[in-house]
C-alpha cells in the first residue's frame, strides 16, 4: 500500500517561502484517474489505462461544446409542458404544466417545501451551473492569487457535486406517469420538456466533467509566501 506525503510535513518546519512544484513544470504528466506520474511524451497511463492529457486550455473546447448543448436543450425544457394530467378522461380537467407552472401549482396547494425542492433543482441549480461553468472556463488558466484559486476550486466542486441532483424533476415525471394510469379516473403523461430537460442536465454534467481543475492553478506564481 502506498500513499502520499502528509500535508505540511516538511513545509511546516520550513519558515521560508513555500513552494509548489507541479508535474507540468517538472516536465512530467500526471494521470488524473490514478495519480501516477509519467514522462511528458507518454499518451496513456500504463497503470490504469486512462488517456493522459496535458493541463492546457485545449480541453476547454469540450467544456464549451457540452455547455452550449446543455443551454440549448434548457430552452425547450422550459417552454414545453413537463407533463399533462388528465382527470376523468379530460372532463374534469386536462392540464399541462411547464416546470415553472408546476412550481406555482405546488405553492397554490400549500406544499411549500416540495415547491422549494423543485424550484431549486429545476431552475436555480441549472442556471447557477451555466453561470458557474462559464465563469470557470473564462477564468481558467488566468493568473490567480491563492485565494482566487481556492474559490474557483470550491465552485468547481459544488458544480460537480450538485449537477446530478437536477435530474429530480425528470424522475418525478417518470414516476408519476408510470404510477398514475387509473384509466378513466386519472392519467399523467410526460411532455416533451421531460426529455429535453434530461438531456440538458446530462450535457451540463458532461461539460463539468470535461473541465480540467488543474487549469485553476496554472496561473499561480511558482513560489508563494504564506
Amino acid at each position, binding site marked *: 500500500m502506498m500513499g502520499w506525503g502528509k500535508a505540511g510535513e516538511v513545509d511546516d518546519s520550513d519558515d521560508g517561502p513555500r513552494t509548489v512544484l507541479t508535474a507540468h513544470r517538472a516536465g512530467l504528466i500526471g494521470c488524473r484517474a490514478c495519480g501516477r506520474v509519467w514522462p511528458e511524451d507518454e499518451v496513456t497511463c500504463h497503470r490504469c*489505462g486512462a488517456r493522459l492529457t496535458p493541463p492546457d486550455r485545449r480541453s476547454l473546447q469540450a467544456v464549451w461544446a457540452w455547455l452550449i448543448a446543455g443551454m440549448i436543450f434548457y430552452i425547450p425544457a422550459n417552454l414545453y409542458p413537463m407533463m399533462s394530467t388528465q382527470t376523468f378522461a379530460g372532463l374534469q380537467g386536462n392540464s399541462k404544466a411547464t416546470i415553472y407552472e408546476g412550481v406555482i401549482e405546488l405553492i397554490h396547494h400549500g406544499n411549500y417545501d416540495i415547491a422549494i425542492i423543485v424550484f431549486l433543482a429545476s431552475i436555480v441549480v441549472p442556471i447557477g451551473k451555466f453561470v458557474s461553468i462559464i465563469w470557470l472556463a473564462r477564468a481558467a488558466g488566468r493568473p490567480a492569487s491563492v485565494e482566487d484559486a481556492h474559490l474557483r476550486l470550491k465552485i468547481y466542486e459544488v458544480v460537480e457535486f450538485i449537477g446530478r441532483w437536477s435530474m429530480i424533476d425528470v424522475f418525478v415525471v417518470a414516476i408519476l406517469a408510470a*404510477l398514475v394510469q387509473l384509466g378513466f379516473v386519472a392519467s399523467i403523461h410526460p411532455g416533451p420538456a*421531460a426529455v429535453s430537460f434530461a438531456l440538458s442536465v446530462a450535457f451540463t454534467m458532461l461539460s463539468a466533467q470535461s473541465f480540467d481543475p488543474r487549469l485553476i492553478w496554472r496561473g499561480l506564481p511558482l513560489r508563494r509566501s504564506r
Partner: protein
Amino acid sequence: MTDDARYDMTTGEGLVVCPRCDALFIEVELEDGETARCTRCETVIARPRTGAFSQIIALSFTTMVLMVGAVFFPFLEISRMGFGNATSIFGVVLAYADGVLLPLVLGMVAMVVALPVIRASLLLYVLLPLAKGQAPHRHAAGAFRLSEQMRPWSMAEIFIIGTSVALVKVAGLATIHLGPAFWAFCALILVNVTAKGYMCQTTIWDAIEDGGASTDGRELVDGLRNANHDVLAADRP
C-alpha cells in the same frame, strides 16, 4: 526516514500527482487511518482503512441482492375509487416498451438500476482476488476505471428524492402505499453511503498494481516527505 526515498524526476518513478491541481509528491507508505491531503488544494488523495476491501465486497453483494428486490417487488401502489395500480420498476419498463418515451425510461432505468448493479459487479471483479491475496483478474485496471467513470451517473439516491416529490404531488389525487421495493431503494442508499466511506481509489490502484496486473514494476518507496521541497531545494543554486 528521509534519506533513502527513491524517485526519478525524468521518468516520474516514485512520484504521485494531485488529480485536482497537478502538484507533485513523493509516494510514501501510509498507516491505516492516516489521511494524505494535497498541500496546495487540500484534496484528499489517499485515506486507507483497515478491512476496507472486505467491507466494499460485502456492500457490493448487498447492493446486488437489494436491487433484485427493488426491481421486481411492487414499488408504489396507487388506488382511487376502486381503480388500482401497483407498479414495480420492471412493470414501468414494460409499460413503455412501445411508446415514444422509451428512450427516456431506458435512460432512467440505466441510471437507477443498471449502473449501480454494473458498478457493484465491477468492484467485486476487481476486489475479490485482491482481498484473497491473489493476483488480480485480467483487465482489473480497466474494470475499476470504468466503475469510477460510472459513479456520477448512478442516481439511485436522486430517484428516491424524486419519488418523495412525486408522492406529495399525487397525494391529493389518490391514495398511495409504499411497496417493499421503495424500502429496498432506501436501504440501497444507506449501503451506498457506507461503501463510499470505505472507498479509497488510491489504495485500490496500488493494490491492483501490487497484485501484479499490468504493472511496469515501479511499485516502491520508503521515504516520507514532500517532493516539492526536495526538488526545489535541489534547484536552488
